[in-house]
């Protein structure tokens, strides 16, 4: 369970995030939708305590990120926008490194690694160095790394970015699996179809503000648009006129 209350963050004169609030529940997939530069990545970075909000609060499973950042990070699995694998290490070594930093003992670590490698269908690449991995192989490795400590909450920044159709579909199935296990999955995207296909709830962000927060179906009904894409365009336009 991730709760975000009135987050503010600015870089110099630029207000990147202004009064963002939403919550992502366990057993649901929540999509953070918005155009490029809307403040999605900055919001997520405050969630996993890489950045400190100027105002507002982040609660993960009831833990306050400002007071207990390590506890919050322990409860989170994170796939950042930049996957950031170590090229001179194999996929398995990449996963093991983060597992050890999470303090897993060697038996648990081996069990988790094997389980994730099987679940993500990456047995063929597990013992290869990640140098030269395809985009899909890199995302798989980074996701396995994010899940190695079996976190209840998962934050994914643009998880299907750069993936081909087959890999995207496999990723979706995998995320549904995580939802079925009762985890809280929060992911960001600027791709409409993605959100429709995956999300139980959509939080739309534009210009650093939340402009809509509902189920995809409800969003369509609220705006009276035929498709979610039309709804999205309407919502963004409306927020632009309001901001101007």
């Amino acid at each position, binding site marked *: 369970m991730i709760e975000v209350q009135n987050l503010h963050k600015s870089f110099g004169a630029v207000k990147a995030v202004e009064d963002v609030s939403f919550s992502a529940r366990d057993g649901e997939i929540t999509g953070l939708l918005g155009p490029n530069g809307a403040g999605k990545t900055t919001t997520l970075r405050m969630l996993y305590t890489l950045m400190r909000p100027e105002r507002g609060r982040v609660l993960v499973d009831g833990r306050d990120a400002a007071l207990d950042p390590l506890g919050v990070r322990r409860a989170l699995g994170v796939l950042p926008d*930049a996957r950031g694998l170590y*090229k001179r290490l194999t996929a398995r070594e990449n996963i093991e*490194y983060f597992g050890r930093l999470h303090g897993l003992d060697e038996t648990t670590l081996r069990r988790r690694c094997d389980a994730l490698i099987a679940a993500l269908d990456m047995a063929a690449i597990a013992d290869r160095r990640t140098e030269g991995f395809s985009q899909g192989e890199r995302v798989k490795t980074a996701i396995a790394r*994010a899940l190695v400590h079996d976190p209840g909450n998962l934050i994914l920044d643009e998880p299907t970015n750069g993936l081909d159709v087959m890999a995207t579909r496999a990723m979706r199935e995998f995320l549904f699996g995580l939802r079925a296990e009762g985890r809280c999955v929060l992911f960001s995207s600027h791709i409409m179809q993605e959100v429709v296909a995956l999300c139980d709830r959509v939080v739309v962000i534009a210009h650093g503000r939340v402009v809509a927060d509902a189920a995809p179906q409800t969003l369509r009904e609220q705006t009276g648009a035929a498709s979610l894409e039309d709804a999205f365009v309407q919502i963004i336009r409306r927020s632009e006129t309001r901001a101007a």
Partner: protein
Amino acid sequence: MHAALTVFLKEVRENLRDRRTLINALLTGPLLAPALFVVLINVQLHIELDKAGKPLPVPVVGAANAPNLIAALVQMGMVVKPAPRDPEAAVREQKADVVLRIPAAYAAHWRKGEPAEVELIYDSSRRDTHEDVSRLRDMVKRYARIVGAQRLLVRGLSPALARPLVAADRDQATPQARGALIFSMLPYFFVLTAFLGGMYLAIDTTAGERERQSLEPLFANPVPRRRILLGKLAATTAFALVSLALSVVAFAIAGRFIDTSRLDMVLDLGAHFATFVLLLMLPLVLLLAALQTLVAAFAKSYREAQTYLSLLMFVPVLPSVLLIVVPVKAQLWMYAVPLLGQQLGIMQLVRGEALGAAPVAACLAGTALAALLAILATMRVYASERLAISG
């Protein structure tokens, strides 16, 4: 397992797989310097020691004007060469090192008992000819002294009358200390080796990781950043230490290839020397690793960090140069200054002097304190929000 240890092991493993780092840390740095050193020293020894006993060829203008003088000079080792047409031009164009000219008036002055003049034509801005010029000048002076003494004797006076004062040289330098002058660059070589040994890790673990954007997921782990930093510093220090140890061993071996009999000194780069060098350098290696990481943390990319660190590399040469240009008497406080303390200490070891407990303690404590401050400063930079954000 402790998080810092996990980071340390991962950094070591990852960098052992990087050929560029390996070659620089474990091959070029530690082995090139000693090899270079042996060559340099042997060349210098040959130049300095060979010249003294060798015949000195000198083109002479007007040799016929002073047959006795020429005969005496030849006896002292000069070899008469045919004179160039224009001696001044020959020296300027570096065709001749030094030319001796005996003017036509020489014989007339000589006979009257007036000072007869001979000219030494040379270019004092050419350092390589100093030796030849001063040898020739000494020969001329010696001849003048002998003739002067003979003239006094002929008149029934003691030659001692003309020499009211004698300055006698009593050089107290031990053979080691004389040789030590040549070895004053040795401490710098050690510092440089440690610097190069750790440099690639400092860059890779901070600027490199930032450039590859892996710092962000790394910091999402439930580990305080200072522990991650400690692991990285430990890895950098370990590489620098291995590099330094290899270098010290290489110098011990290289020492055998230096012809010390010509130096008239005992060169001891053996176990005792190696132990103390490593001891004195230990806190300095830590200080260098922290400074390198600190500098690398300000760089946005690998290449930028490399540029900054190449500049930082010139700092350690300062004490070496300073002590060569402005020789100072070592005070206890100087040992507490990082770099300067190591320079003084290692020089003392080279000179074969015993190193007192107080200087060693001052050196270790002073540098360790500086290292601690550098680590704390690096921790502050590591804690900043800006560090993890790449791009």
